[in-house]
C-alpha cells in the first residue's frame, strides 16, 4: 500500500488531502499517471510543471521509484518564510 498526501492549493483543487493506492510499484511519474487515470479531473492540477513531489518526506524528482509502505506527497511550490 502507498500513502499519498496532497497539500495547500493542490489539496483544495483535488478535494482530498490523503488517499491510498493498493499494490502500486513504479516511478513517481507512473504513480501520477495512475492517479490521473483513476481521477481524470485531477490531471490539469496534478500534471502541472510546478507540482513538486516528496517520497518519505524528502524532495525527489519524478523518476524516483515508489513501492509498498512508501509515503508520497504532491504539493505546489512552497511559500514559507
Amino acid at each position, binding site marked *: 500500500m502507498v500513502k499519498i*498526501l496532497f497539500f495547500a492549493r493542490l489539496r483544495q483543487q483535488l478535494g482530498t488531502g490523503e488517499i491510498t493506492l493498493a499494490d502500486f510499484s513504479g516511478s513517481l511519474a507512473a504513480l501520477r499517471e495512475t492517479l490521473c487515470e483513476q481521477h481524470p479531473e485531477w490531471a490539469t492540477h496534478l500534471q502541472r510543471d510546478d507540482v513538486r513531489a516528496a517520497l518519505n*518526506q524528502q524532495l525527489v524528482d519524478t523518476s524516483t521509484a515508489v513501492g509498498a509502505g512508501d509515503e508520497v*506527497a504532491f504539493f*505546489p511550490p*512552497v511559500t*514559507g*518564510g
Partner: protein
Amino acid sequence: MKEVDRIEVCETPLNVAAEYAALQGNSGDGACALFVGSVRDFNAGRDVCGLNLEYYPGMTEKSLQGIARDARRRWPLGRVTIVHRVGPMQINDEIVFVGVTSPHRQAAFAACQYIMDRLKTEAPFWKREAVADQAGNAIERWVEARASDVAEMEKWSAG
C-alpha cells in the same frame, strides 16, 4: 558542546527576545546574525488582512533540520535556531526567526542568509492570504511562489 540546533514549528507567537537570549547566552561566539520575517500588509497589489500557514507535519521539521545541518557543513557555527510559525496570523506577526552564532561575522551572515534562502525554496510551508477584493470584500487566496527566491537559492550552488 556549543553546537546546538533548535528547530521548531509552532502555532504560538514567536518570542524574538527569548529566542535571542537562548541563542547567544553562553554561546561564547563573538558574532550573531538574525533574521525575522513578519506578515506584511501588502502583497502583489492587494491589501492583506491576515495569513494562514499550512505545513507538512514531519517533513517540514526534517527539511529545516537538513538545512541547518548543511549550513554547519559550510561554515563554523556555534548555535543555530530556526523557528517557524504556522496557522492563522495577523499583520505584523512574526512568521520566522533564524539565528546563528559563529566566531566569524562573515560566516554568521552567510549562514543566516543561506538558511533563509533554502527555507524559502524547499521547506514545505504554504501561505494563504486574506485580501480585500475590488469590492472591498475579504477573499482568501494562495500566495504565489516567487521566481526571485529560486534565483537567490541558485547562487549558493554556483559559488
